[in-house]
């Protein structure tokens, strides 16, 4: 098993924390894990991205230059990284903020209105974990249970309110494409 994910968006969307959540879940699953942030001259409101690799074997290069999965939380991220995704890879697009479609035909593109769903939950900030939930459902990179268990590592464990909110975000994301498929089938 070898899976690499690039999460990209703008600073403040929680991109780095979402990547850490994934990395913690991979660690709990006893996998080899690397998490690498973009640490260039970044600033608030600028772009932010991080690469997470989860593998059953030791990871040679921690840099995710050709991701198997791309999470594009905003339009500049999709434009910047669409071409880097491997052929037959997956792009999960936050359709609340990205008003265009994935141009490539050799990758799977999935759209989820993460900010809209987050607002329905009552907090715009959890949009990234809604997408993360969807990504976990689509790729099975880690189990949803381990991701939920990892919330206490990324957020202060005493802040139960925040943890419960993000738990719900992960679950809503994980159910989104499942429901969509069932609606279509039904």
């Amino acid at each position: 098993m070898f899976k690499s994910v690039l999460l990209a968006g703008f600073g403040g969307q929680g991109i780095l924390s979402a990547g850490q959540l994934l990395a913690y879940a991979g660690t709990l699953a006893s996998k080899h894990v690397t998490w690498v942030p973009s640490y260039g001259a970044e600033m608030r409101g600028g772009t932010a991205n991080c690469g997470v690799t989860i593998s059953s074997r030791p990871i040679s290069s921690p840099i995710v230059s050709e991701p198997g999965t791309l999470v594009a939380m905003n339009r500049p991220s999709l434009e910047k990284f669409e071409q880097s995704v491997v052929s037959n890879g997956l792009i999960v697009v936050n359709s609340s903020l990205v008003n265009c479609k994935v141009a490539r035909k050799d990758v799977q593109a999935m759209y989820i209105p993460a900010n809209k769903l987050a607002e329905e939950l009552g907090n715009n900030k959890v949009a990234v974990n809604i997408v993360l939930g969807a990504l976990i459902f689509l790729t099975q990179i880690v189990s949803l249970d381990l991701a939920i268990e990892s919330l206490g590592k990324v957020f202060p464990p005493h802040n139960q309110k925040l943890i419960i909110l993000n738990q719900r975000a992960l679950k809503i994301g994980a159910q989104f494409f499942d429901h969509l498929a069932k609606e279509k089938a039904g």
Partner: protein
Amino acid sequence: MAKVLMKGNEAFGEGAIRAGCRFYFGYPITPQSELAHFLAKRMPEVGGTFLQAESELASINMVYGAAGAGARVMTSSSGPGISLMQEGISFIACAELPCVIVNIMRGGPGLGNIAPVQSDYFQATRGGGHGDYRLIVLAPSSVQEIIDLIREAFDLAEKYLNPVLMLGDGLLGQMMEPVELNEVKEVSLPPRPWATSGRMGGPKRIINTLIIVPEELEKHNLKLNQKYKRIEVKEQRWENYQTEDAQLVLVAFGTAARVCKGVVDYCREQRLAVGLIRPITLWPFPVKAFDYLLSLATVRYFLSVEMSTGQMIEDIRLAVNGRRPVYFYGRFGGMLPVLTDVVKEVKKLLLEEEC
């Protein structure tokens, strides 16, 4: 024990605490600042001293003072800051005091950038400052290895009464990996007869690096040199990866070595006999690794893969001493070697010649 996810820079901090280090002096610089952030919080928890100095010059001289008083002490910086510290490091080496210095390298020369490089190799392995001295240089290539090696760094520093430098690139400092932390054991420091903590009825303890009489300085130089020779014999460390039957042996350390392990795996799947020597001590350079491989006679070429324009290759050539050709592949300026590009270089050497 369960693994925890930790950033490389934090691992230097936690590893140092677990090794009994209780004094840290430093000045912030990307890409190593998380090390200081971490220790600012963690040091007081164990009753230690964390101090952000007013400059790198001040930091290294505080390290000098604390080491002289018998403390387990550390500082950290990145290339430009390490350059500023060189005067102090030279003094500490001359005074024969133990300390650990961490350099999380960034692009250079000059202010350069904050991306990962390995271009401080010369600075680290040739002493760096003025005068005739050496640093023991350790180069971890994973977050776990940071934890494992920093304990050894403090032990080596005290065993030889010499500064030890830990050299990593920005990527190693910034990345997170799962690590296994051993139980915290009380570290009992060995006796410190050099420390200026009171003569206790014994001889005067004076720390001094001004040795004005040439006859006396020559004696001191000789004493240091004999120590360095002992270190060269006893402390070479490296990792062999699939080298036993290798025709082409890659040589790389730190992050470049991780990429090269991927290259070896890829080449082996294509039945190319490729291996890797990963130096863990950059000084002393693991000459023994080369002597052993050359005695096997299967190796035909060496290829140095570095994140610089070619610095370690000089040590490889000295170790190989003309017995085989040594080639070079490097990326620099903050660019990383890419697996497929290194494979191309490997194939150029191994396949084209046969055509």
